[in-house]
């Protein structure tokens, strides 16, 4: 075990896998000479050279599409999107090609590739640079969608992504890059997909989340504990595959549930999570599953408006009290 930042955990995962397997390479904009806008790839060009650390032109569709071709021929490309907002430009290559080629080829090819990069609200990045995409990708069969909340999971899930045989959308939270946590040193430490974890035990209300909102939910849970409300907090880790068994079990115990996401509410990830929980443990619910989400607006630039647009601890606290009918 060692204390690592989420950022370093991601870099370690990539470098360990590149050391382990010559078929692993990384490409992206300004990841080499510039060493990455978030410095995730610092030092990698020097260590692995331009054949394995490829600075690309500004061409997200080109990056994603060439990665699909590389993967079909047995390489394991990692594509760094400077931010996931730019991956929308590559939507066709990801959704119509990466996600489907195994299927329409009748299983003749593997597509072992990872598209990773930061997403979510930063500080005043405004409407085109503040979005989250988990529901956007998780709707499509053929993809795997990962959203780690801790440095350990960032490392373990990324290693699983790189070692796999399918296209993985690895959604990082820029706001968590500096976050520190214990990370196993074992070079073969991996975290499997589709295995949610109980991040905090509790008996009163179940909170289901992932990525940065999971961390925010834990803070809210601590504050609620001071008021004597014990929340069980579940970290989904991956959205596709989606493991809700621990959530079902938890709700069977707490009978109350709040789902927390940064995304816009309509047609966001929390809708699927809430709908599935309701379908599966309806009779256990003493209150409808509540959703805490970002406001349904393009992200404004002004800091005061941005703060109004994003979810905060107090929203989680209010939602927990609401499902406990303990408001006001």
């Amino acid at each position, binding site marked *: 075990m060692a204390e690592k930042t989420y950022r370093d955990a991601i870099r370690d995962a990539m470098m360990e896998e590149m050391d382990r397997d010559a078929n692993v390479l990384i490409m992206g904009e300004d990841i080499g000479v510039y060493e990455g806008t978030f410095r995730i790839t610092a030092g990698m060009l020097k260590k692995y050279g331009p054949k394995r650390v490829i600075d690309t032109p500004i*061409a997200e*569709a*080109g990056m994603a599409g060439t990665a699909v*071709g590389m993967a079909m021929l*047995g390489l394991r490309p990692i594509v760094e999107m400077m931010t996931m907002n730019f991956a929308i430009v590559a939507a066709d290559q990801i959704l119509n*090609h990466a996600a489907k080629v195994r299927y*329409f*080829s009748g299983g*003749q090819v593997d597509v072992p590739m990872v598209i990773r990069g930061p997403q979510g609200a930063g500080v005043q990045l405004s409407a085109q640079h503040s979005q989250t995409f988990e529901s956007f990708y998780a709707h499509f069969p053929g993809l795997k969608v990962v959203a780690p909340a801790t440095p350990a999971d960032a490392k373990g899930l990324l290693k699983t992504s790189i070692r796999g045989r399918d296209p993985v959308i690895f959604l990082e939270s820029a706001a968590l890059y500096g976050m520190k946590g214990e990370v196993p040193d074992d070079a073969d430490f991996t975290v499997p997909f589709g295995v949610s974890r109980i991040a905090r035990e509790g008996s009163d209300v179940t909170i289901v989340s992932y990525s940065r909102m999971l961390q925010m939910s834990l803070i809210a849970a601590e504050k609620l504990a001071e008021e004597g409300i014990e929340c069980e907090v579940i970290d989904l880790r991956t959205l596709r595959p989606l493991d809700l068994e621990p959530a079902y079990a938890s709700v069977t115990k707490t009978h109350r549930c709040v789902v927390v996401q940064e995304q816009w509410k309509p047609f966001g990830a929390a809708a699927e999570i809430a709908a599935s929980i309701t379908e599966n443990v309806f009779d256990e619910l003493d209150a409808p599953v509540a959703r805490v989400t970002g406001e349904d607006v393009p992200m404004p630039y002004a800091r005061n408006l941005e703060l109004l647009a994003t979810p905060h601890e107090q929203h989680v606290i209010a939602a927990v009290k609401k499902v406990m009918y303990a408001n006001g």
Partner: protein
Amino acid sequence: MAKAKEQASATIDPAAACAPEWTDILRQMILIRRFEEATEREFRKGKIGGYLHVYSGQEAVASGIITALQKGDILFTGYRDHAHAIALGSEPRRVMAELFGKGTGISKGKGGSMHLFDVEHGFYGGYGIVGGHLTLAAGAAYALRYRDTERIAVCYFGDGAMNIGSFHEAMNMAGLWGKSGMCPILFIIENNGYAMGTSVERHSALTDLSQRVRAYNIPTEKVDGQDVFAVRGVADRVVRQIRDTGKPYCIEAITYRFSGHGAADILQPYRTKDEVEQHRHRDPIGILRNRLGEICGLTDDDVKEIEDWASKEVAAAVQFAEESPQPDAEELWRDIVAEHGPTRENE
């Protein structure tokens, strides 16, 4: 075209013109033509579903290039892909079974006409989004060189595909990677004059398509796509060069599609019957056949023998497809992600 013609004769040794290989190429082109005619019949009978895009008239572009390739080379193309599969060596009956949506099809019946795949023969598909496969092909070429192989990638696309963004991004990246010898790829523009119903003049600001490719620092030349001697001549030279240098190259094959864009394109309001007739005079099969007749004494009986063989082959393919079972219901859930499929080592 003059220029292209010269090149052709310049690059083909007259002595070689009668090598038995040329008769094989004629066989292949006739087989492809018969195959496509059969697909159109079976589509009308309702045996083939979805979209069907046939290659009749363009055979020399597939056969002239693909016969110049080596085992291990790989190919990507769009949805007009039957000829490429057959030229690469896929069994016609398994291609036909794919079009019939049968479990014996080369993509297990899951891809259909637009998504033929036969990795064993180097065929990496078979794509339905115009231009979408170009970036895949460029990446695949990088992978071939990354593993220090001598293999090259070939990527076919139509004139209309040149207007979409992924064409641009693929070309620029191929041009860049080529500088360090990391992109051994041959791009083939199948310029049949139309994108569905839109002529090159109406879809491309600059109608000299090879000129457009120069914007990516990729050498390009035009060739008469109806003359398989010309196509093959250029291919022999260019394929060697790509293999040696690891740099991309582009060939613009000027050709023509005899049938409609797809099986649904009956009216063809964008061109006259007369225009089609004119082009039928330059049928690539007729051109090769006459050439072999004049220079090598190929007789009508020889040709008849080939045609009978091709018809039998295709009839057998149709029968095989007809008699093959539908895919098992479990196939619905296979091949979505790795767990669902048989484990396979990456090459």
